[in-house]
């Protein structure tokens, strides 16, 4: 396998490794805030386990393979099964994740605007969530098992005189209202603040990884 995505976990932490040609190229680790190597991942039991897994040997840590990754552009949504879902570079935008653990179907939307669209455009929060929900159900997800997580809606401007730039809060409120209206349970959220985010969903354990553009990583 030339490139694969591994999820490694033990009792201390969890990590996603993106690999290419059997080399670890990128990681999202729940311990990175306290780890002295940070993103460079020189060596630890997780790294060793992943490396030995790539070499074909078994290790005593819990390792799962994911089937690739999907990234949703601005105003799009993507649905997949056992794939890593990503939205990158969120400022005022919101990454909304819907997942059904019982079937493994999950989706991510990159929401740009609050409210609903008259003609089905998925850049609007309400429309994006409803369409993604329906698509997931069509693909076999069970309606009453779908849960939600979302993050984003920052206000990145330190100095600002244009009111239109204050859209993050309205996006967050619109997403939350839509989920409540639809009776979709919200398991986690991380909204507001002044720093942009990358939002990643790990279907192997259902956690939302929020990587702030300034480095900090949260597993929610």
């Amino acid at each position: 396998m030339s490139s694969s995505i591994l999820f490694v976990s033990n009792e201390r932490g969890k990590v996603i490794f993106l690999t290419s040609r059997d080399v670890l190229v990128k990681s999202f680790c729940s311990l990175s805030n306290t780890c002295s190597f940070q993103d460079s991942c020189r060596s630890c039991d997780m790294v060793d386990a992943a490396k030995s897994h790539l070499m074909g040997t078994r290790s005593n840590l819990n390792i799962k393979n994911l089937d690739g990754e999907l990234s949703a552009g601005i105003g799009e949504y993507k649905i997949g099964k056992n794939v890593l879902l990503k939205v990158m570079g969120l400022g005022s935008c919101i990454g909304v994740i819907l997942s059904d653990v019982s079937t493994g179907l999950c989706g991510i939307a990159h929401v740009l605007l609050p409210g609903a669209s008259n003609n089905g455009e998925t850049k609007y929060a309400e429309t994006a969530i409803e369409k993604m929900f329906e698509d997931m159900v069509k693909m076999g997800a069970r309606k009453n098992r779908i849960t939600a997580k979302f993050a984003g809606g920052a206000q990145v401007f330190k100095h600002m005189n244009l009111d239109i730039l204050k859209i993050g809060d309205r996006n967050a409120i619109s997403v939350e209202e839509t989920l409540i209206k639809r009776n979709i349970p919200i398991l986690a959220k991380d909204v507001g603040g002044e720093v942009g985010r990358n939002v990643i969903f790990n279907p192997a354990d259902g956690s939302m990884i929020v990587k702030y553009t300034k480095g900090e990583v949260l597993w929610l």
Partner: protein
Amino acid sequence: MTDLENLSEVELDVLKELGNIGTGHAATSLSKLLNKDVFLSVPKVKIGEIKNLSSEFIGEVVAGVIIALQDLEEKRSGYLYIMFPEKSARKIAGDLFGLEELDEEMYASTIMEVGNILSSSFCDASADFMDIILLPSPPNFAVDVPTAVIDSVVSQMARKSDHIILFETSLSSDSDIEIYLAMLPEPCLLDDMMKILGQL
């Protein structure tokens, strides 16, 4: 109103020329300000889908200055987006003050002022040479990845269209200074430009 998806070659050329003249003058101002030679890249005009926007920008954290442009009737004509990669921003601010370290507030307001000067000379040039009046707003400042900075502006434009016109160029100076400049015109700016062209 001009349809962004189907712009003619002429319309794109006019837009490119506006950007060219504007950034040319911005480069001159920057050169005077830093007392250094400033080089200008060949500008590009792209019509892109909003969903692919993130691939248009550099991936590193930038100090971003956003300036809204208005015409005389206070209609929004578009936005100027000036991106200073962090290293360049620190270098510019440091050079202007002759200091290695600046406190954050000073740093932010210096970069905003540089953004202000660049956008003012951009607007001056467009008024002088093309009779297109653009009034710049005071600068808005953020430090983040380029898409995170611009997405609130994009959301405004996305209400009207799924497409966006992006005029992009970069300014650079001898030692590790790089500035990326983008203009995101609203359809009404294109209408104004076409009107003026029609009178020629």
